[in-house]
């Protein structure tokens, strides 16, 4: 077994602003974070997982996440995901994954047309995933949200199918932004790409009000570690 911390690539877009918090939090749960600039066409060779951080990539021009979805680094992330690599998108990262069609649906303006910034309870709807395996089914996590466009939307048929397949991993316990079915976090069908609007990287220390985010990030690091071991 390697003693080296697994590398988690954090992609930095112009306008990302949670990249350094994410790197700090990942290091706190045992990863070696590697910041990757958006116009890089390759991820570091030893990458075991990818995190797309929050922020306002490309100024949220056109639609949130749309410009980032065609950045060179996202081609590398697509290849990584296609090989089964674990990818977690937080907030703007979730928007980017939806715009990249790596996750279903789209994030729309909050129905109340207000930016929401508060700690919210989020329920674990599926604990049998790479990202939530340190949680238990039905567990309520306290995680901060801070977004203006976090209302997840898809057509009814898509939504029903996703729920049936257990892809709706996290739901808000209360209505936060008008998200369909109170969706807070979503998994792809293969189970290696997840996006969520709440910020686990801002909740890894009780001093910050909650350490629940550490459960999700540590699971990502577990996955990165397993991937590196499998490849070795």
């Amino acid at each position, binding site marked *: 077994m390697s003693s080296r911390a697994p590398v988690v690539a954090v992609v930095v877009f112009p306008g990302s602003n949670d990249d350094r918090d994410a790197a700090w939090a990942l290091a706190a749960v045992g990863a070696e974070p590697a910041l990757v600039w958006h116009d890089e066409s390759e991820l570091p060779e030893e990458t075991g997982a990818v995190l797309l951080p929050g922020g306002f990539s490309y100024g949220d021009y056109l639609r949130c996440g749309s410009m980032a979805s065609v950045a060179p680094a996202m081609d590398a992330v697509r290849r990584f995901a296609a090989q089964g690599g674990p990818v977690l998108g937080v907030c703007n990262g979730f928007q980017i994954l939806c715009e990249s069609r790596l996750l279903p649906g789209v994030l*729309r303006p909050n*129905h109340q047309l207000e930016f929401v910034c508060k700690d919210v309870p989020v329920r674990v709807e599926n604990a049998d995933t790479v990202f939530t395996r340190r949680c238990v089914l039905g567990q309520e996590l306290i995680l901060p949200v801070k977004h203006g466009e976090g209302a997840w939307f898809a057509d009814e048929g898509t939504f029903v199918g996703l729920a049936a397949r257990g892809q709706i991993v996290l739901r808000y316990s209360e209505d936060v932004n008008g998200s369909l079915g109170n969706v807070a976090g979503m998994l792809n069908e293969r189970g290696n790409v997840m996006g969520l609007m709440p910020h686990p990287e801002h909740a890894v220390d009780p001093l910050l009000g909650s350490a629940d985010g550490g459960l999700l990030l540590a699971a990502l690091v577990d996955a990165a570690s397993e991937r590196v071991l499998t490849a070795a």
Partner: protein
Amino acid sequence: MKATVLVRPKDGILDPQGEAVEGSLRKLGFTVEQVRVGRLIDVEVAASGTDDARRQLERMCAELLTNPLIESYEIRLEGA
């Protein structure tokens, strides 16, 4: 060739921005039934002709300019 892409929230898609504008217009005393807010994108594209330009714009809409889940679009070519 000059083109304009009109992007609209699809029918049936909730448009909170449009609703807010509608409310403000009512406050100003206007009688409005409904307001929907979309986007207008002017593009000058290098093309061999109208058909080529339209093909390119269709691809632009599919790959970046619009999200088909929530938006519809209309392409207008200058002189076409």
